[in-house]
């Protein structure tokens, strides 16, 4: 056995469990992780959030951005723990206010790539107001919304994206509220790049995140994930691997969706993956602010 191969069943050999010092150098993804942080992450075994984190790191790495040129802003929740593990500028804020703080950061530092990482409840319930208004302003922030259909960290309360009829700890007889379609909401509010993918399609998620970060205006990427610990257990959906397989089976690419007849599109219950909307004609907010206001204020 060569020294870098760590086999877990070799538990008698405790030296095999000590991380090798060159571990971070073995992969581009691992180099962007915070070196002084305790790993593994706090997420449950098999949670899709780790896949989203890997995709985000690969997207930033693909764009060739320096670590200091990227700021990650997060609120509260399972998803909002994500920036803790990454070696970029990070801002940890109150529940739902990630986009509010990110707006201030973007106006103060227009050259910085600001990414707001939010869960579905963080983005749409507590911070729903900030979400639609950031899209209305078209400010150059990337909103990464990880949709796991439930409030995972607080114990499985139903969220604005829990599907109709599904069980949550606060909806023991089934949820009676229709869910928010995140991408359609962002499109209607005026976002200039809207894409959706799932954690099973991780490389597609890389591509969409790369395009979203490169986009000038407000961009939204919905990463459909799962919570097997609360949502999956209450609704008897199986293990993490089962739920990931369900994402594979219950999603359809946008190119295939467009070929369906209108009746079939109407009856479609699968998750539509793809770039749902892109508009490069709207001007970005900080640039417009500089042109319309800052130049006039300075000339007075």
């Amino acid at each position, binding site marked *: 056995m060569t020294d870098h191969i760590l*086999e*877990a069943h070799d538990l008698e050999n405790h030296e095999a469990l000590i991380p090798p010092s060159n571990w971070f150098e073995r992969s581009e*993804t691992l180099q962007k992780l915070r070196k002084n942080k305790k790993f*593994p992450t706090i997420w*449950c075994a*098999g949670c899709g959030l780790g*896949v989203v984190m890997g995709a985000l790191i690969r997207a930033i790495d693909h764009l060739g951005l320096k670590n200091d040129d990227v700021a990650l802003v997060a609120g509260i929740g399972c998803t909002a723990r994500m920036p803790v593990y990454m070696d970029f500028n990070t801002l940890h804020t109150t529940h739902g206010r990630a986009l509010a703080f990110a707006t201030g950061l973007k106006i103060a530092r227009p050259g910085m790539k600001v990414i707001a990482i939010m869960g579905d409840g963080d983005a749409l319930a507590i911070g729903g107001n900030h979400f639609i208004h950031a899209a209305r302003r078209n400010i150059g922030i990337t909103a990464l919304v990880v949709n796991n259909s439930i409030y995972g960290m607080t114990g499985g309360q139903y969220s604005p994206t829990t599907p109709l009829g599904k069980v949550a700890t606060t909806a023991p007889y089934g949820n009676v509220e229709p869910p928010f379609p995140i991408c359609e909401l962002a499109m209607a509010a005026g976002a200039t790049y809207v894409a959706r993918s799932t954690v099973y399609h991780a490389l597609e998620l890389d591509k969409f995140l790369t395009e979203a970060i490169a986009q000038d205006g407000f961009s939204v990427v919905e990463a459909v994930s799962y919570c097997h610990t609360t949502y999956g257990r209450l609704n008897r959906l199986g293990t993490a691997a089962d739920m990931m397989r369900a994402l594979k089976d219950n999603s359809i690419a946008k190119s295939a969706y467009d070929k369906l007849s209108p009746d079939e599109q109407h009856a479609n219950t699968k998750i539509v993956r793809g770039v749902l909307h892109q508009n490069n004609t709207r001007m970005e907010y900080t640039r417009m602010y500089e042109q319309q206001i800052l130049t006039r204020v300075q000339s007075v």
Partner: protein
Amino acid sequence: MTQPQPTEGNVSSKPLPRSGPRGEVTIYATWCKGCRICVEFCPPKVLEMGPLDNHPRVAYPEKCTACHFCDTHCPDLAIVVRKLE
């Protein structure tokens, strides 16, 4: 449960069963939480769960095609796949 034959390092000395790209899988046990996603989804079934604990192990390294499914889908970033030349 049948025990896989021990292999020297991560690359088998057995003759290649096929042509095409090959990869070397490294699993970092201290980061792994044993969620089984890599074992259940690996297309050529390179990985399997270890007999003594709740972690995967590289059972058939010669089958790896460097498709990078396991390292992109490992939620704990505990797997690194290196494509062999």
